[in-house]
């Protein structure tokens, strides 16, 4: 019987792929479609991480209510990423501070890093996809 994913790559290749969330969760579709991409890539057993910088940190803010703009809220999905084996969530400290937020305002446990530390992680990746 043929393999279902006959065209996919050698299973032993594990690439470091970082997704960078930079935009507010609503206002543009970048964050939402970025999340969709993360969820699919998570199924491929790669070394996935997500960095939240600039307005991207708002994606993780507790207590969002999207009823008024008639759009689906998805902060909870970010909060559940560890269920998809996406456990490396990095938040830029200065981006949080500039917006008056602290770790307690976020829906999920994250690692708070300096911009320099996030920059260093980026240089270690095979692939960086910004959203």
């Amino acid at each position, binding site marked *: 019987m043929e393999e279902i994913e006959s065209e996919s*790559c050698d299973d032993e*290749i594990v690439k470091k*792929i970082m997704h960078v969330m930079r935009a507010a969760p609503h206002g543009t579709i*970048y964050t939402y*479609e970025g999340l*969709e*991409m993360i969820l699919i890539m998570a199924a491929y057993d*790669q070394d996935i991480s997500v960095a939240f910088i600039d307005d991207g940190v708002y994606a993780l803010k507790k207590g969002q209510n999207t009823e008024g703009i008639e759009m689906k809220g998805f902060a909870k999905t970010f909060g559940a990423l560890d269920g998809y084996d996406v456990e490396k969530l990095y938040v830029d400290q200065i981006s949080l501070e500039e917006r008056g937020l602290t770790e307690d305002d976020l829906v999920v446990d994250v690692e708070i890093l300096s911009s320099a530390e996030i920059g260093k992680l980026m240089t270690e990746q095979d*692939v960086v*996809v910004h959203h």
Partner: protein
Amino acid sequence: MNIGILLKEGPYNHQAADTAYKFAEAAIKKGHTIDAVFFYNDGVINATRLMDPPQDDRHIASRWAHLCQEHGVQMLACIAAAKRRGINDDVLIDCGTITGLGNLTDIAIRNDRLITFGD
């Protein structure tokens, strides 16, 4: 070097589509291989042959079809993003394919670089 391209912006509205095309052309000229161009977000609008710009302007969809026909670069549009924006097989450029994000993941894995164009 083997390169995949991820294009996240629509044509004409944003220069990303032009820059990605020029990059692909230049890379091929230098002897690199462009494996695929994957259209995501509004980038999927690059994949409709219905665009009809004034004659003195570049025809972005034709550029992509040309890249595919002349150099074997796959032109792939994400199905979820395409469905939201009314892009389907009926309007697709010659040589274009609607596919899933799993295909983008494979492109990211099998190439030396995945290069993203867009805001």
